[in-house]
């Protein structure tokens, strides 16, 4: 029997004190927002379709299957195999240069790798099941549906996994069988984890791609949010998070009423379907609107991505043959060199760059005479790594598509490198597009990254230190850091 009574205070949950992230939220004043659901006729109807995500995933699953097959049984020549050309030239550029800045984590909605895990948990491709499951869900879920360990509920595993994977990047991006084995392996792990753990546990904590998507989606010009947070506050069901007969509870365990950044929203659009108040908006917004880095794991993801962009620029685009030989030890057999290369890569990503950045943030706090804790200053300014890193990655990827993109048409007709000519494009000659002008585009991209970083550094300083003078003083060292990073990339690309 349940009895309704008046107000009372309940004591629960005694846990050791823990730092609460980087202190008060740093958020930009509410700037321009345009609800694309209202602006584009039919868009909301489309996302409300129960088959919406299936329709996005299915074509990718077919291509993914062909890519895995090609990796294992196709030609080992990288530029003639669809596994290499489609993944490391086409997909990579579209992901980092188009989907992320213009579509946030929309890739996560169409990614084929969690397909089998999703099906196992839901036993449905399209329909919704109502029932009860742990975590407050009002949907019936299959599998063990366990909660991921608290100690691992961050992106450290993604950080180390991604860095480990990228240490072998030369093998990964040149050998089809390695690419296929890694992608296939990730799919198997995603499926197995989905059998044991709740919903998109793999995507949130393990997937190596998800880590940088999470970080860089903060810059995206779109966001999925509640249209009116008061409506969410008054909502008596919170169906976006718990699910109902119209939609699955958020697979990423997000409560839309309080969501204030893109990082962990996979844009599956289930909340659009399940919201009983029709209160979800897909907003167009200014570039780099989210500015809150919540923990060291996210900050270190920024360092790792920046260090990797530098390393790849040297290895893959630079003239230094020695470093290339070190990175390509499986072919050159120079394992001592590979050890040195790995040590430099891991050391710079995990220790040197963060230590350098700490020095600059310490100086910023000192110059601004700030009284806020150092941790808060460090994590707040760590946001600068996001625009700097993303634009550096886009600049790095420009030659991939304009120079090596010429391989796409031939492999489209001959995906396995077996001499087929399915669409009559197998013999299209390799012809790079404007190779002599690409460096200007790269520099322009880097300069835009620097501009955004400087603008944000000032805004962050203002929030941290409270006055224009202090923010300007804080901007000096952070500006020097950002400028140094930009100049380093310019020297890699133009040197």
């Amino acid at each position, binding site marked *: 029997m*349940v009895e309704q009574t008046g107000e009372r205070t309940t004591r629960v949950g005694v846990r050791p004190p823990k730092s609460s992230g980087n202190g008060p939220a740093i958020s930009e004043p509410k700037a321009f927002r345009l609800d694309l659901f209202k602006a584009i006729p039919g868009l909301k109807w489309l996302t409300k379709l129960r088959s919406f995500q299936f329709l996005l995933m299915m074509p990718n699953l077919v291509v993914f299957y062909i890519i895995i097959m090609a990796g294992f049984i196709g030609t080992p020549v990288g530029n003639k195999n669809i596994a290499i050309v489609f993944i490391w030239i086409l997909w990579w550029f579209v992901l980092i240069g188009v989907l992320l800045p213009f579509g946030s984590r929309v890739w996560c909605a169409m990614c084929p790798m969690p397909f089998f895990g999703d099906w196992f948990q839901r036993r449905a491709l399209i329909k919704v099941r109502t029932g009860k499951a742990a975590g407050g869900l009002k949907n019936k879920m299959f599998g063990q549906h366990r909660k991921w360990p608290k100690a691992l509920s961050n992106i450290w595993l993604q950080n180390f996994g991604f860095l480990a994977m990228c240490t072998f990047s030369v093998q990964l991006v040149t050998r089809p069988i390695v690419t296929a084995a890694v992608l296939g392996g990730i799919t198997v792990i995603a499926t197995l984890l989905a059998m044991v753990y709740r919903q998109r546990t793999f995507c949130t904590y393990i997937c190596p791609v998800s880590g940088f998507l999470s970080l860089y989606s903060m810059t995206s010009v779109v966001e999925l949010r509640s249209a009116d947070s008061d409506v969410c506050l008054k909502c008596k069901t919170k169906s976006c998070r718990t699910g109902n007969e119209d939609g699955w509870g958020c697979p990423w365990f997000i409560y839309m009423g309080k969501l204030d950044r893109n990082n962990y929203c996979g844009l599956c659009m289930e909340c659009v379907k399940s919201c009983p108040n029709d209160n979800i908006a897909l907003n167009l917004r200014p570039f780099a609107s989210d500015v809150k880095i919540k923990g060291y794991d996210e900050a270190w993801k920024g360092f790792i991505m920046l260090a990797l962009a530098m390393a790849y620029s040297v290895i893959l685009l630079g003239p230094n043959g020695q470093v290339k030989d070190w990175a390509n030890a499986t072919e050159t057999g120079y394992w001592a060199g590979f050890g040195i290369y790995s040590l430099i890569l891991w050391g710079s990503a995990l220790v040197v760059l963060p230590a350098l950045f700490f020095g600059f943030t310490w100086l910023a706090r000192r110059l601004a005479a700030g009284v806020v804790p150092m941790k808060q200053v460090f994590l707040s300014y760590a946001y600068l790594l996001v625009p700097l890193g993303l634009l550096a990655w886009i600049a790095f990827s420009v030659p991939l598509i304009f120079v090596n993109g010429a391989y796409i048409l031939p492999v489209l007709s001959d995906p396995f490198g077996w001499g087929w000519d399915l669409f009559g494009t197998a013999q299209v000659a390799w012809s790079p597009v404007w190779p002599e002008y690409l460096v200007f585009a790269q520099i322009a991209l880097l300069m835009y990254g620097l501009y955004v970083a400087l603008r944000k550094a000032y805004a962050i300083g203002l929030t941290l230190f409270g006055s224009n003078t202090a923010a300007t003083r804080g901007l000096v060292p952070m500006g020097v850091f950002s400028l140094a990073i930009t100049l380093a990339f310019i020297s890699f690309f133009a040197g």
Partner: protein
Amino acid sequence: MIKIESRRTIFCEVCKQDIKVEETEEGTLIVHCPNCSGECMICDCHLVKTCFTDAEKIMVRHPSNGKE
């Protein structure tokens, strides 16, 4: 008998403050922590075990109900 209040708070032992708790129509408790940003997968809240759980379960654990 389990007592469930329509409006109440929970005392956070770490933050030393009363936090508002809401119960949905379907009997799910939701903690309205001022630091909540809706990202339950990486939630650091000290009351995380209470949030999005069945109201009855929490009340059964409460000492005033005479049960653990």
